[in-house]
């Protein structure tokens, strides 16, 4: 067990190092001199040279890389070229909408997806199964922004049940906050519902054909108890993995959903940073997001033993 955790942590560090090198090189490969970008168009060569010296751009690449990593470990993600403020501060200002949207979407996708998967596996081959499997294929195929505009058109513009766009902080009341997040999170959750439902169904079908399920049926367990107590617990590990992996895609989806619904979150921050070529901000968000993804997956891998005590390392 101990050696497994150690190996797993080591490979996580290796992956983060790869991400770090990649993201670091991204800034170096970018066209244009970062010092010239900060100095502005009309700056003289002397000013640019001084900024280069200040930023340490004259040192060798490995030295610069080590310094950059050191800064990140201290919690300094650099300074935005355009806003002139620390990247971490910019990101943390935009974090609330993004986290609200992501968490709500994950809760929605996990509950609905697992329910759909269980129903489809329980009625395998039947009408419910066909409908849900069809929905899953469709859910994979419809792009987030198309669903978003359909929902906006029918539920916000035509029916006027929900606000069209925008975001209200949770501080302004739970209900208005939720009202603004219903359409975005439903939109964003559709592909994940499809994905989680598919994996849940496959995993449940595998478990349902096990001998102990026949034993459970023979001793007279109700179908509720069979599905939830006997099957779901044993089918849990793959479902959990998939929910963890979904986070990577979720963040990409958040960028688009925030644009569709005009939510001032971290996703908008990246898109704006790219349009203005604000590389420190792009770097900072990439490092943070990838780090989160890697840590979530590490936590999930390590929690297998909790879900399924049969797994030992």
């Amino acid at each position: 067990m101990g050696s497994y955790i150690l190996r797993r942590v080591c490979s996580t560090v290796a992956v983060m190092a790869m991400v770090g090198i990649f993201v670091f090189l991204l800034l170096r490969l970018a066209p244009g001199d970062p010092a010239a970008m900060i100095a502005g168009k009309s700056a003289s060569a002397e000013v640019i040279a001084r900024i280069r010296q200040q930023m340490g751009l004259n040192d060798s690449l490995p030295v610069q890389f080590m310094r950059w990593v050191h800064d990140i470990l201290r919690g300094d993600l650099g300074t935005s070229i355009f806003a002139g403020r620390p990247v971490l501060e910019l990101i943390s200002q935009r974090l609330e909408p993004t986290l609200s949207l992501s968490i709500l979407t994950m809760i929605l996708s996990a509950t609905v997806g697992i329910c759909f998967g269980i129903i489809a596996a329980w009625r395998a081959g039947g009408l419910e199964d066909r409908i849900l499997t069809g929905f899953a294929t469709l859910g994979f195929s419809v792009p987030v922004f198309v669903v978003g505009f359909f929902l906006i058109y029918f539920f916000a513009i035509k029916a006027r049940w929900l606000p069209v766009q925008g975001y209200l902080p949770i501080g302004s009341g739970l209900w208005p906050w939720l009202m603004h997040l219903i359409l975005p999170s439903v939109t964003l959750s559709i592909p994940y519902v499809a994905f989680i439902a598919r994996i849940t169904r496959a995993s449940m079908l595998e478990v349902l054909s096990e001998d102990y399920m026949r034993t459970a049926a023979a001793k007279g367990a109700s179908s509720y108890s069979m599905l939830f107590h006997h099957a779901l617990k044993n089918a849990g590990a793959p479902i959990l993995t998939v929910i963890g992996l979904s986070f990577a895609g979720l963040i990409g989806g958040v960028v688009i959903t925030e644009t569709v619904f005009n939510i001032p979150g971290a996703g908008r921050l990246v898109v704006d940073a790219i349009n203005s070529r604000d590389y420190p901000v792009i770097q900072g968000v990439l490092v943070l997001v990838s780090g989160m993804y890697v840590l979530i997956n590490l936590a999930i891998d390590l929690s297998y033993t909790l879900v399924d005590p049969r797994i030992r390392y």
Partner: protein
Amino acid sequence: MTFPSAPIETLPTGHLRVSGFSRLARRCPLVLIGGVLLAALILLALAAPLYTGDPLNIDPFKRLQPPSAEMWFGSDNLGRDVFARTVFGARISLVVGLTSATGAALAGLMIGVIAGYSRNFDSVIMRVMDGLMSIPTILLAIALISLTGPSVSILIVAITIVQLPSVSRLVRSVVISVRERPYVEASLCGGARLPKVLWRHVLPSTIPALMVQSAIVCADAILTEAGLSFLGVGVPPEIPSWGNMISSSRLYLSIAPMTVFAPGICLAVMVLAVNLLGDGLRDLFDPRSKRRR
């Protein structure tokens, strides 16, 4: 909208045995539906100039017109024919989807075979792939594109790189399972050279899984292109692509919903066709999975 591929153990490694068209239709209707739908879309896109007007023609007097006999899907905010733009937009999606799928399949095959066969390179290559995988697809593609500015070719390269990890992981897993098989060992013991063994015995067994994965990659690439164009960092804005169309028309959603819905529905239909084809191929190559699924 990127997903990690399905768990590897559910993916097929069998061989393809099909005799006759009707048998294919009976065994795997999905391949047929998806294939016909995709073929129809490709034909419509290729023949676009024969039956539509100019997608770039601006007519300020016909802005945001509702659908009519002259302009089937109405016109957008610059008076351009939405039907013509939608049809021409299919070309971009198809080009991006098919080229990145082919590119990712070929490069992934090479990387996967090397990683699966050489224990020295394996851990290095796989850590690099893990690193690439842990950066969200859209952000990674955006970062790559931000280096050069938007263009169709750089978009294809970026999407191909983004898709590499899933393909090479899959190929690697198949290669690892095949390389221990008796027939591979027998052939090596018999004195066959390694490249020949790879070509004759290892490569063919990766083809079914690779084809299924290529379909998934293709669907994903089309969605990524549309998403990037929608964000304004994909195809340059003057080229009619579905993502660009939705992006430039979204302010007029309440006045002219067709300008957003027409490209949106086409996008969904195309991705659905590719996904059905992929699902069908999976069933075809691995009949076991169909019974289980």
